[in-house]
């Protein structure tokens, strides 16, 4: 069965937007619940920094108050990184894909999106934020479950998985990056309660807190946390885990469907995987975690572009007839 290039692209992005929405809901939720400094204040601005949205945010808000940041990331339709925008994009892609995906997948996204839009008018008060974020997260997980149980396993499935894992790897690097400055050990902060709670927050955002405790029952340090989130081979959101998945998916996609293109994308994935496995976390931190994470994000962008060129018809060179048979 042929897969239209445009469909492959929509599947890839539908998966990315759903994964992105889930991650944002996690971040907002954890921020509201755990991320308080000694004075009980929450630094909402770090979320704006995490998404590199400073310029856009200040074009509509004077100060990064809790209300402003929450609204900006929940319901601001002008913000392409808001939950409402992500869901709209996911739904638009799903709408195009309705002939391809299961009815259950479409219906769930459709109802989810419509409920979120209806909520906007009512305004979500901060005390309810956690409840709403939990609901969003669960809707995203429902989507994941429905997809797992109903989405026909052919080419489209691979593009879905590729989108999901690329997004997930990217989000994990952003989560880590938000705290990178606390990794620069200042004699005062290391090991303090504040430091610990900051790192606990990062882990909770990635749903990795309890797994981490199991792996490192005796010590939580910036280094072990960062190492766990970057390189752990069993943690579903670790960057290495995601990139390994991407690697396997691309290989199987190409061979199973004898696709001509995609070699450049595979090379880029190998390059990234090699780089990730080349250095232990201590060395990475010494050299500068922030620059390292930026590098990973740039490489993920590069992989996305190559996938687009190879499979989404973004570079269609007219083929001769003999090739198209």
């Amino acid at each position: 069965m042929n897969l239209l290039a445009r469909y492959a692209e929509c599947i890839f992005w539908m998966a990315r937007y759903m994964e992105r929405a889930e991650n944002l809901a996690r971040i907002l939720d954890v921020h509201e619940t755990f991320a308080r400094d000694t004075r009980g204040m929450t630094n909402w601005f770090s979320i704006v920094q995490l998404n590199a949205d400073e310029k856009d945010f200040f074009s509509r808000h004077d100060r990064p108050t809790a209300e402003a940041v929450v609204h900006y990331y929940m319901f601001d339709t002008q913000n392409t990184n808001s939950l409402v925008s992500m869901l709209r994009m996911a739904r638009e892609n799903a709408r195009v894909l309705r002939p391809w995906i299961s009815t259950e997948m479409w219906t769930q996204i459709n109802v989810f999106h419509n409920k979120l839009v209806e909520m906007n008018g009512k305004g979500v008060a901060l005390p309810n934020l956690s409840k709403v974020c939990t609901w969003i997260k669960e809707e995203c997980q429902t989507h994941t479950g429905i997809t797992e149980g109903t989405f026909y396993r052919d080419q489209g499935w691979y593009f879905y998985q590729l989108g999901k894992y690329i997004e997930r790897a990217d989000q994990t690097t952003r989560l880590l990056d938000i705290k990178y400055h606390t990794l620069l050990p200042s004699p005062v902060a290391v090991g303090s309660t504040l430091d610990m709670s900051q790192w606990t927050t990062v882990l909770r955002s990635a749903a990795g807190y309890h797994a981490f405790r199991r792996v490192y029952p005796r010590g939580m340090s910036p280094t072990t946390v960062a190492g766990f989130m970057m390189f752990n081979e069993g943690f579903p959101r670790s960057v290495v885990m995601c990139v390994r998945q991407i690697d396997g998916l691309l290989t199987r996609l190409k061979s199973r469907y004898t696709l001509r293109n995609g070699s450049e994308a595979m090379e880029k994935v190998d390059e990234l995987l090699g780089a990730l496995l080349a250095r232990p976390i201590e060395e990475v931190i010494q050299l500068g975690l922030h620059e390292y994470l930026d590098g990973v994000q740039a490489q993920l962008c590069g992989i996305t572009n190559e996938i687009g060129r190879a499979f989404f018809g973004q570079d269609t060179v007219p083929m001769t007839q003999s090739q198209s048979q």
Partner: protein
Amino acid sequence: MVHTSRQTPLPLGIGQSRALAAGESVSVPEGKATDLLTNYDPGLYYDELFGGRDYPAEHSALIRQRLAGLNFGDLLRRSQDAERELYNLGITFLVYSNKDAVDRILPFDIIPRVISAKEWAHLEAGITQRVTALNLFLHDIYHDQKILKDGVIPADLVLGNGCFRPQMVGLDVPFDTYIHIMGTDLVRDREGTFRVLEDNGRVPSGVSYVVENRHMMQRVFPDLMQDIGIRPVDNYGHKLLDAMMEIAPQDVADPQVVLLSPGSYNSAYFEHIFLAREMGVPLVEGRDLVVENDRVYMKTTNGLARVDSIYRRIDDAFLDPKAFNPDSMLGVPGIMEAYRKGNVALANAVGTGVADDKAIYCYVPRMIKYYLDQEAIIPNVDTRICREADALQYTLDNLDKLVVKPVGEAGGYGITIGPRASREELAECRAKLLADPSNYISQPVVDLSVCPTVTDDGIDPRHVDLRPFAITGKNTWVLPGGLTRVALKKGTLIVNSSQGGGSKDTWVLQDGGLQDGAQEGSAS
């Protein structure tokens, strides 16, 4: 921090339906103690469930009995459930208002329209006859034009018609079939006679609702259907695919069929999804297709792949900027040449618009006589062509009694209903008629039949029409059922969805009516 990557933006402007907000509860009046149909009065109209005044319908007796025994609150609740489900499933069409596109459901009424086996046999024969004649007509006008030479139809009406496509002259199409998918609009007058109101032979739509309405009924009203033999409508997609395969170029072993849609912002997009899914074929847009060496290809993840047969949901004008409207962004440059060379099949064929023109409609009974030497099984509505002087005079003299329709408009636009028009509207209509008589036809007001319908005040009669669908490849097959559109506003005769109409499930009963062992019990 590297910016998150984004998809190239999709167009904006999707609003949301305000018709149904989740969690909005609707208060349900207490059920009436009396039988639900006691006070039902269809007036002078023919009723689709009760029949005429002198000949009550026997085939629907059990259905009436079951409906009468229901509680009105229960009926309303089921209605609301059905409409909410349609909204959640996205069985919707886009309505554009200002700058927003709003997802709207086609309102659904849960009281079915029932057609007996005998009535259906008559309709099926009549529709088949009509499709056959129209296809013979199209073959004729694009070849020898005998019907024009014999003076049966005025030549200028055909050759001067905006939908006549010179590109089609002399071109042979598989099985000489031009209209593969046909939707015939039928109405029923006071006597209970079905009449053809209009032929839709270009890109008829609505069949997805025929099937989805049935599914909806099975979900919300299974007890009403119990033991009643209703002919299924599920196989439409198979029949359509078969026809698309039949007309594909003969040298292709396993033809690739696709459905070509103008895209997800078209108001009928749900139907395009539905049909692509039911056929199991890709739903493509113009940008997914390219023509090379007069062959059509689609862009896949593995490069270009041949396309052999296209069910197109795009009008001729937008199909190929090289052949027709050069500004069209929806079409495929060069597709017309590929079609002319026989490298790709199109359904419906190009140039069928001549056959479903409102002016040509008046000549269809003569066409049937000319080509088939038969009388029309389903008569037309008595129609006058205002291009003819005496017809224009008659129309002007009886403007307050007639319905005046422009020949080129669809969707119920531009119609003047004389008996209901104000003095100003009549004057306006008169001016338009005098300015451009050829653009108008006139018909007596047809007293459309009614069907019991759920309204806020109880079960009330509302006017309905019927659009059955026929598929023709080698032969013609008529889907047993059709789209029953219902004018939900009290008294109104216009059933078009663009004018606030809704729809109903249409039950064609099996021969023999009730199935063995049917219990005449209560339906709770």
